[in-house]
């Protein structure tokens, strides 16, 4: 009987009948930098959160109903959590919240918040640094473009991979072989694919001048459509509209490895003299580049996918690393306006290097304001 009594006392201690202490300092505020509809609640945890026999299991959050004294439950927060976002608030309506600390079947007295209303913001204050960077960089590019318009000579550093484009087309011509151009595996909504189609225009023009057939297998219908127009226009520009063959700019499949298999088969049957890989690539990059390498073709790759760059560097003769892919169009055309934008890009890079150096120096001296300000929200 004594043991039974002791176990009962242990299971139901005397103070378990009391509710846990409520959370304190409940603050409600509009969530910053959003389209509205969100109110953020912060509070200090209940004194019984995480310890004791009245240990809190969760917090229950209730919201006042506009024009009424009643409250409705809007959600719960786990123990140890001191923040909750009410994502169902109407914009411009003031709400009051109350939070209960709950422990099994007991709940604390309510902790009442201040009144708060959700509002949409017209400017994202966490992105000020980004806006300033965009304005400075765009101004640099625009300034150099205006300089180029005035006829100022602009020096652009040589890029080996782009210098080799002419050689690759020439070599394929001398060998009496075709050129294969692979515009990546993403669609026209990716900037790398757009850059690739732009480069295709330059390569196709050179190929048309040399009367060398160009083969463009595409993995997206829209890319195929854009590539067909680009190659056709390049042939017309080169004065050889007759050599444009729409059958050589074709769609294969949207499937990643189906495309890799199809292009590999084309490479082995066609044995092109030069292969260009320009655009966005994933795991198929090495499958394509190694097969191309085995055919003995001169290979030039360009991508802004850092994880695929080592594969291209290994398997190709030349690789355009990241930004060089975007510089290719200006570099190949040598048009002053495009070169101006390239020059602006280089100055932007120099500016970023300076800011990085200043940030490292300041952080080393214990000042983190610059790094904090540059962080984009």
């Amino acid at each position, binding site marked *: 009987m004594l043991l039974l009594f002791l176990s009962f006392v242990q299971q139901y201690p005397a103070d378990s009948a009391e509710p846990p202490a409520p959370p304190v300092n409940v603050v409600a505020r509009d969530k910053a930098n959003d389209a509205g509809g969100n109110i953020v609640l912060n509070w200090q945890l209940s004194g019984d959160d995480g310890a004791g026999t009245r240990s809190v299991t969760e917090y229950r959050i209730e919201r006042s109903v506009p024009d009424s004294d009643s409250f409705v439950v809007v959600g719960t927060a786990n123990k140890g959590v001191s923040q909750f976002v009410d994502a169902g608030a109407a914009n411009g309506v003031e709400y009051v919240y109350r939070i209960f600390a709950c422990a099994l079947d007991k709940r604390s007295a309510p902790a009442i918040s201040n009144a708060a209303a959700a509002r*949409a913001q017209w400017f994202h204050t966490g992105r000020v640094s980004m806006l300033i960077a965009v304005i400075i960089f765009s101004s640099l590019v625009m300034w150099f473009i205006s300089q180029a318009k005035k006829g100022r000579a602009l020096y652009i550093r040589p890029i080996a991979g782009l210098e080799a484009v002419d050689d690759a087309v020439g070599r394929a011509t001398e060998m009496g072989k075709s050129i294969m151009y692979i515009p990546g595996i993403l669609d026209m909504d990716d900037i790398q694919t757009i850059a690739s189609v732009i480069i295709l225009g330059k390569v196709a023009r050179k190929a048309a001048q040399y009367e060398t057939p160009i083969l463009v297998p595409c993995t997206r*219908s829209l890319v195929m459509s854009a590539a067909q127009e680009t190659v056709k226009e390049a042939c017309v520009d080169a004065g050889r509209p007759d050599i444009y063959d729409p059958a050589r700019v074709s769609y294969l499949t949207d499937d990643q490895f189906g495309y890799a298999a199809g292009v590999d088969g084309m490479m082995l049957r066609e044995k092109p003299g030069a292969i260009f890989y320009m655009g966005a690539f994933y795991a198929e990059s090495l499958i394509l580049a190694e097969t191309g390498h085995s055919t003995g073709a001169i290979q030039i790759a360009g991508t802004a996918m850092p994880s695929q760059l080592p594969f291209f560097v290994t398997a190709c003769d030349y690789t355009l690393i990241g930004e060089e892919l975007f510089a290719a169009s200006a570099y190949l055309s040598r048009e002053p306006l495009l070169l101006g934008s390239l020059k602006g890009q280089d100055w932007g890079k120099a500016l970023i290097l300076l800011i990085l150096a200043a940030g490292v120096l300041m952080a080393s001296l214990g000042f983190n304001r610059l790094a904090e300000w540059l962080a984009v929200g």
Partner: protein
Amino acid sequence: MKNQVPLLITFIAGFVMVLQYFIPHWPFSDLQGLFNNWFLIIMVFAMILGIGNLLKLHLGKLQKKASGWWYSIVLITGFAIVFGAGMIWGVESGSPFDWFYFNVNLPMSSTMFALLAFFVASASYRAFRARTPEATLLLISAIIVMLSRVPLGNYVWDKLPLVGDWIMGSPNMAGQRAIMIGIALGVVSTSLRILLGIERTYLSGK
């Protein structure tokens, strides 16, 4: 006119997308989703172009009895069977289309992906030949990183995983970030050229 209208559409669409990044307020908050939906709709219709091109190409090969024409029979038959199965019985789980996907398409894709192991081996063999100081550095770094990722590395020297982590987290990460900064600037520069109509090659303009 042929080029002016697309350029205007490009400018407005691009500028609005830039604005929506800085303005969280409606209607800008919904624009990205709206434009993505438009793109998806255009993409679905463009599929017809792609499939049409593929079938036209292979039917032409069959007609001309061009080299490798029998592969075209495989493609057209495969397309007809899968397309027919999808149209007649739908694409739900357990349908014939689903069966074709899991028992034909997926194993073939996996096979192609598995080939990557052999290509990695042949590419690594070429890349890791210590012919230049840079290639030697690459070889040494690669050996350390590879050893640090397997239990054997820890057995050889218990500090090896730390060295591997340092190579990946410091020199490798610094290099990757430098490339990413360059890419970001290149993207902004290219976008500006396109938005301002300086770059028109993608519109088949000069």
